[in-house]
């Protein structure tokens, strides 16, 4: 079963890469656009530290590390689940009929059909910069690095859950295209340390739109600022959230009214 889906994912990734590379102007523009977006925010953080010594008690490299973690997680989400951005059109035009008639999981196929090569290329320098910044911070232990990677995985499960809920909303109410964009905008909360927010906002973005669990908790684990109990909370939250999202998807699917038939 897992082997079959890995093979399918690989095939979809190859097809998607071929499609991206055949549109060279778009390819270069999107890649360059992503670097511009990254570069400007990076410059903004540097500008902040040109005028101030700390942000909410964090030093320059620590704030940069939060920003890099945001970029890594956000890019991974787009790399693996890019298909969601075209899902509304699939449902609206009735093409989703062909997806559900395929002998594969419709949700897996819909989310994975557009593996983004541009995000993969963008991710390489970001990870390298994160490693460099990690060395500059200097005090991370093997335990911190291990906890960081594990928590990133939990974060990815939550992201998958958010994508599944967005897909369910689109099936349910075709106009809900902006649900995924609401998630993307919420992710920007993770660009900065959570301590800058008020307790109410922190609560909201920890449990309702769990950006702090997705980004800030892993980053804090790396910075050795995390109470280990958060590893358990993150694991439980990710498991429950993913399970809940699958339930929503199944319920949403019952509302699917094929547009083409």
């Amino acid at each position: 079963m897992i082997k079959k889906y890995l093979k399918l994912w690989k095939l979809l990734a190859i097809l998607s890469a071929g499609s991206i590379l055949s549109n060279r102007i778009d390819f270069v523009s999107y890649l360059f656009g992503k670097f511009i977006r990254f570069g400007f925010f990076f410059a903004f953080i540097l500008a902040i530290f040109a005028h101030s010594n700390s942000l909410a008690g964090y030093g320059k490299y620590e704030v940069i590390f939060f920003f890099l973690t945001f970029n890594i997680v956000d890019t991974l989400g787009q790399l693996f689940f890019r298909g969601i951005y075209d899902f509304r059109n699939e449902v609206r035009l009735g093409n989703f009929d062909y997806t559900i008639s395929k002998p594969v999981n419709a949700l897996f196929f819909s989310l994975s059909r557009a593996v983004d090569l541009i995000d993969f290329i963008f991710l390489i320098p970001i990870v390298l910069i994160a490693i460099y910044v990690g060395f500059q911070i200097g005090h991370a232990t093997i335990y911190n690095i291990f906890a960081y990677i594990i928590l990133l995985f939990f974060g990815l499960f939550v992201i998958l859950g958010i994508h599944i809920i967005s897909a369910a909303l689109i099936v349910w109410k075709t106009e809900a295209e902006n649900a995924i964009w609401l998630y993307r905008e919420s992710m920007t909360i993770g660009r900065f340390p959570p301590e800058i927010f008020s307790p109410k906002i922190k609560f909201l973005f920890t449990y309702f739109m769990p950006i702090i669990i997705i980004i800030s908790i892993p980053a804090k684990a790396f910075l050795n600022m995390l109470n280990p109990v958060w590893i358990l909370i993150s694991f439980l939250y990710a498991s429950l959230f993913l399970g809940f999202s699958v339930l929503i998807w199944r319920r949403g699917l019952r509302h699917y009214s094929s547009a083409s038939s």
Partner: protein
Amino acid sequence: MKKYWTVFKMSWARELEYRFNFFLWRLRSFIGMTLLYFVWFSLTLKGKFAGFTEAELFTYVFGANILRSIIFGSQTRNIAEEINNGWFSRYLLMPINHFWFEFFRELAQRTLNFISSIFEVGIFILIAKPNFILEKNFSSLTFFFFSIILALFLYYLLSYLVSLVAFWSREAMGPRFLFEWLLEFSSGAYFPLSVFSEFLFFTLMSLPFAYLLYFPLSIYLEKMHNSELINFFALELIWIFVIAFITKYIWSKGLKRFTGEGI
């Protein structure tokens, strides 16, 4: 003029058709504003930041949110798509000027976003009760409104011009993505451009993007001397004329290349 008013009304009705999507769209904007508010709140706890007081920075965040809604639009995105799929042909048969047709179509979207953004900022102020500046100086307000009108045209010209790439290439969305991010940052949508070094600041001020948000907001916050004001207004007008000229030229060249796919 009556036909463009009809275009405005139709576009208005269309925008209101998808209310749930519109609500989610505006919620995005609210989250963005919240993030920036807290960033500036943290940075001004110890006093001024980069020459800005807390009230000035909060006013900048709220002002940027409101101005973005009226100056930035997304309707012109569809132009490239319509050129590529051939739908554009129908406009050539209509007794309209395509430039103004799209302008009024987008104006409805901008007006709706503008009303919503005022409402959002109002709610935010009621909840967070932040310090902010309510400008009362008549001459500053006059220059501010004048700069908004110019910014509105400047953005539309730039946006329209980028969409015309579709006459030459089917790959118009990538350049559009690049343009939008360049514009978001260089316009000062996230932070005042003066937080950057002097060299970067003057480089950005020599480009057209800074006149979309940073310039009007600097006028509102009285951060510009009279001599700077005159120079920057002159530069903005030059940019508008240059881009209008290029747009007209590209339009006429592009139209000759249009193949009317799908007819």
